[in-house]
């Protein structure tokens, strides 16, 4: 991504585009990643409830996986997964 120079940026650090935080890929900060093993998942969605960054992708009540663009790898989802054989497991990036 080419970054804008000072002549092209809005002045005063103002953000003029609404809802543009989705464009900020905070997933780059991650050092550990949650791996998803769908075979062990019962779709209880506890990971979705506890994820502090809305990085659990869910559709029609089903867990679909992780939004790695925004997951910062905090590991809360893996810790909260109630399965003995965890459907979410943390691994090094």
């Amino acid at each position, binding site marked *: 991504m080419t*970054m804008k*120079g*000072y002549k092209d*940026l809005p*002045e*005063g*650090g*103002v*953000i*003029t585009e609404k809802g543009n935080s989705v464009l900020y890929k905070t997933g780059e900060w991650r050092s550990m990643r949650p791996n998803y093993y769908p075979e062990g998942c019962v779709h209880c969605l506890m990971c979705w409830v506890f994820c502090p960054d809305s990085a659990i992708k869910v559709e029609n009540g089903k867990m679909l996986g992780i939004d790695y663009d925004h997951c910062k790898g905090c590991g809360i989802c893996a810790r909260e997964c109630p399965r003995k054989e965890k459907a979410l497991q943390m691994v090094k990036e």
Partner: protein
Amino acid sequence: MALETKQVAMTGNEAVANAIKQINPDVIAAYPITPQTDIVQFYSTFVANGLVDTQMVTVESEHSAMSATIGASAAGARAMTATSSQGLALMHELLHIASGFRLPIAMPVVNRAVSAPINIHCDHSDTMAALTTGWIQIYGENAQEAYDNMIQAVKIAEDPRVKLPVMVCYDGFITSHAVENLVLVPDEKVKEFVGEYKPQHRLFDFDNPITFGPLVLPDYFSEIKAQEAEGMLAAREVILEVAKEYEKISGRKYGWFEGYKLDDAERVIVVLSSAAGTAKVVVDELRAQGEKVGLLKPRVLRPFPAEELVKALSGAKVVAVMDRAETFSTQGGQIFTELRAAFYEAPKKPLMRNYIFGLGGRDTTTAHIRTVFEQLKQDQERGSVDRKVTHLDVRV
């Protein structure tokens, strides 16, 4: 078009309050501090009497006053507050935010010493400590200049090329509380001159939602600050343009500084604000005796008009810079060090010495100014200054 000539008698604060009345800002945040208080006090009567449309917000501190002003300005209002001394010090972190957000806030600062020891009288230690906050600083000698600068400040600040806040500085009590004759510009001419405030971005534009004050990390922070520096650079043109335009409605000329009998002067005093008035009297007296003396009264310190000052002083043999605030650098006052630095590339440099004077409201009389000119004369004859930094009129 005939210019207004009818004189009125007002204190400096009353004159500035009247300028703000004519500007009729949308929001004023008010908190009292001597010697600024009666600006907002006068203004509250204008509000109570229905003479202005301003929403006046009384707040619990200067920190809140500047915060409220920033909030209102970011919302899209023409917003103001006024302060002095500790009040300016208390709003210090917000000063950076106002300029960093590029909010065109025009604020009178009635110069007063900063505690300790506690003191309510004039010196410039309050605004000198705010020189690096990204605010434009304009100084006035008397009530007339304070009034004129206040009106010009709004137009300078709001110019789309500048978009920076402006401090309109004048001396506590000496100017703020003394009654002087001055000429006001008629209401409708001021209204037309300042025009309507049309911000580029405002929070109260619900069709185009924006964010003020997001976190900006190392990848963009330098760019935002470079923009601010560009704004200050643009102010170098805009301040002169606005002065020219203001001359048309007032008949009064403004620029970077006022030179008084400066053209052929060999010995020159450089001094801000009200003390310049006292110095003019001494310049007249000494000129009558055939002495080649003159005065330079800076008007704008931010942006610092280095080239213009160097040019104006290029013919001088000895210059005394009088600073009404200590820097404790042991190398002299703020104006002294900046002016000396400005001469670094100059092919011809006058001898220069510094006086720290008038602290905490100590009267600077014509006798003190005569002493300074006398010392300059000795320096000129000797070909060197005998002392770089002198605290004027201090008992030992």
